């Protein structure tokens, strides 16, 4: 089982003499890795943001959760397994506004750096680095997206099933 883990801030820079920590370098403690914050500690699920096409044709944004998929390798946990048709890595500039064009297919967006905010139906979801966003085919009406103050970089995968 893999648990949510931390990255060691400061790398190997912590300095000790005779077991006594020296200066600020001693603050090189474990810091949470925000990229991994979506994964449950037991490794059985991960949080996602969903951009949903509702029955009324409107788009909504909501937080959700997905379970681990069956993996051909039982020792590994696996998530968001899907066939795909296209992939892109792109960057959005700071405060960039993206109008809600209708999604022609299901998609998965993973925020690698920076952050973005999706709004629809009076709700907003902030999506920092480490967020996976699942987009319904046909969604987009009433949806707005605004990149964070430093923009963001993402992997977008157009899904095929």
């Amino acid at each position, binding site marked *: *089982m*893999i648990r*949510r*883990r931390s*990255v060691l801030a400061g790398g190997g820079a912590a300095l000790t003499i005779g077991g006594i920590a020296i200066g600020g370098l001693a603050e090189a403690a474990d810091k949470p*890795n925000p*990229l*991994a914050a979506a*994964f449950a500690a037991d*490794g059985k699920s*991960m949080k996602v943001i969903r951009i949903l096409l509702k029955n009324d044709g409107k788009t909504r944004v909501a937080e959700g959760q997905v379970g681990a*998929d069956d*993996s051909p390798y039982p*020792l*590994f*946990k*696996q*998530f*968001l*397994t*899907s*066939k*795909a*048709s*296209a*992939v*892109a*890595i*792109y*960057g*959005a*500039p700071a405060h*960039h506004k*993206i109008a809600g*064009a209708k999604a022609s297919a299901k*998609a*998965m967006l*993973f925020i*690698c*750096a*920076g952050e973005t905010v999706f709004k629809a139906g009076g709700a907003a979801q902030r999506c920092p*680095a*480490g967020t*996976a966003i699942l987009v319904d085919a046909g969604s987009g009406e009433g949806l707005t*997206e605004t990149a*964070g*103050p*430093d*923009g963001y*970089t993402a*992997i*977008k*995968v*157009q*899904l095929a099933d």
Partner: protein
Amino acid sequence: MAKPKFMNADGTAIVAPRTYTDDQGKTHCGVADWHGAPVPPGEATIVPAGCTRYYEGKAISMLIRQFVPGMKTDYHTDPADQHQVTFMIDGEAAVGAKDGTSFHLHAGEFASVEDDHGEGHTAVDATGKGFTQLFVAVPARS
């Protein structure tokens, strides 16, 4: 936000470690540069308007995989005719080729696995705590 660690010095390209196989079937580790460019108007793309594209192409499948602590592979190639565009979400992996070239992939970095044939590469959990990686399989020749 500080400049992401995957960008080059002047912020114009994503720098991604890669594995690849040469014409003699020898596998090596190297570096891929995915240069940023605006998407021309009218072009069919999945990149939102006004954004900078670093990489775009056909895809076959995707998954996020959590590798168990201590995971270590022998030399292996990934599925024939597929490359893998990857992003390290958590942990650290050490990747090596038989020619002695290698790289460490840290959380927050991209990599490109392009040795779908040849000698292959090894992958080792570098911290002993496991690692989590996003994989997108793409056609080797698209």
